[in-house]
């Protein structure tokens, strides 16, 4: 990574960490992990399940919210504060600006996820009194959640490169919902014939597939994740993010910033 991208990424990270909303969300997730313990107490025989399901779902959903709400403002804020012109006038290329912003935001989310994961593991230790071998799969689920954030960040950045923050949030959230229902979309495509079937299949392959990245329920039961799925999910998330970032660069290169 060249130094200009590194500088933008670091500044983006620093700015995001300064954002108080971010801290509130982390605190909320930690509270939710605590709530998981209480829910485990009032239910039967599922303390560990509740901690993993509630904890990882909270990590995932709050991470997505952070990704969307910071991602959509990355470009517009710089334009609004007129700092973008200063940055671009200092021999920083537009594509470097976009890529730097992406790395800064994903870095922020990785650090956030690590904090949230710590809360989940502490809650797990509290209810189980010890870690078990199957808990290592929780780390795989967390890795998939981070991959999910990569895609959401890239999409938020893509939409914010040509749209208003509000519309970018709507578009990104809509794609997150559609992507979470990707398996249903594929099921629909399988039973539809003719042009409709081709169209549905095309859309099913075009929208991000978040359902393959969600293994929370599986790891909560201590079931392992196939090595091949880890590889394919990694490749898929990186390629999809690269695609969205490339789209953002293409649009941002042509955008009239005056």
């Amino acid at each position, binding site marked *: 990574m060249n130094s200009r991208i590194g500088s933008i990424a670091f500044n983006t990270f620093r700015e995001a960490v300064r954002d108080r909303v971010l801290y509130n969300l982390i605190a909320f997730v930690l509270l939710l992990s605590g709530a998981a313990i209480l829910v485990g107490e*009032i*239910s*039967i025989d599922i303390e560990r*399940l*509740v901690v993993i*399901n509630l904890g990882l*779902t909270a990590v995932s959903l709050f991470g997505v919210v952070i990704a969307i709400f910071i991602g959509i403002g990355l470009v517009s804020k710089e334009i609004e504060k007129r700092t973008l012109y200063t940055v671009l006038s200092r021999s920083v290329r537009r594509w470097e600006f976009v890529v730097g912003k992406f790395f800064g935001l994903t870095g922020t989310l990785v650090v956030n996820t690590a904090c949230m994961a710590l809360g989940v593991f502490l809650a797990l230790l509290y209810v189980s009194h010890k870690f078990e071998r199957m808990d290592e799969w929780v780390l795989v689920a967390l890795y998939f959640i981070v991959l999910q954030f990569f895609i959401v960040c890239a999409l938020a950045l893509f939409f914010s490169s040509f749209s208003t923050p509000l519309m970018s949030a709507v578009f990104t959230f809509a794609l997150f919902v559609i992507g*979470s*229902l990707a398996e249903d979309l594929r099921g629909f495509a399988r039973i539809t014939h003719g042009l409709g079937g081709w169209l549905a299949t095309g859309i099913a392959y075009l929208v991000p597939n978040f359902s393959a990245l969600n293994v929370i329920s599986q790891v909560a039961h201590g*079931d392992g994740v196939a090595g091949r799925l880890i590889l394919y999910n990694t490749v898929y998330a990186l390629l999809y993010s690269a695609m969205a970032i490339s789209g953002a660069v293409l649009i941002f290169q042509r955008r009239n910033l005056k």
Partner: protein
Amino acid sequence: MKMSATGRVNLVALAVLFCSLAGAMAALYAMDRTRRQPVGEDELYISSPRVLRRMSLGYTGLLADIYWTRAVQYFGEQHHGNSGDFRLLAPLLEVTTELDPKLLPAYEFGANFLAPPPPSGAGLPGAALSLTKYGIAHNPDQWRLYYNLGFLYYTEFKDYAKAAEAFKQGAALPVTNEFMPILAARMAQHAGEFDTARMLWVTTYQSTKEPSIRQNAAEHLLALQVDEEVTQLEQVVERYRHQTGRLPESMGDLERAGFIHGTPADPKGNPYQLTMDGRIEVQNPRILYFITKGLPPGASPPQPPRESSR
């Protein structure tokens, strides 16, 4: 000291905040007292697991946990309130297990509390059977589910052939319980009712961590002991009558004739009573739940007190 304008505004705002909060809470409390039941307690707004699965955006595990907790709380509240109405228990457990087919405690709970008649359960043995079969289809390596299936066939349907088949399948699994092959054999022979029933309840007691299911099993074991002892004592009375040509007047008559040693007592320590017509009765049937023998004529088996399971 004179307060500044900003200070006065702050003070008034603070007072309004607390007064409004207290007033809102009081209004809510009054509302709760007016309504017979809190909103949502006995309603299942979305009963389709398919719709719920889509609404969860893939986070089905958490939703299943929420529905499972709701099922447990619902059963506890209905049981505590002595309503005998468990109509939502089956749909709640169905939604739970369809959202997370691997949630084994839900199947165990369903087998134990869906089948028995009210007020101990929902009185839906068919629903319990369907739930258990669904569990086996999704967790074919879990011996407990085959055990529950055999248990249901034996206790609720008296279908010994199907019960034997279920225990046999469970016994053939790589990880199983030592009682499974014995239960399979006993069902096939349909022999030793008390021993078979005892073995079933002992297996239930030993293989569950859930306190309410353990307690239920322990109470059934005590009831079985009473039923067996009363049966044996009544056989002794019959033998005495056959030998002497008259009914014994007291337990002392049986002891003097050498049929029993000492005064037999039930598991709670109360001596069994001999009635004038030669029947054996327990002294306090209200503390011996589920017993079917030793009850006064016309009395129905006593049920445990209504306590919330959690």
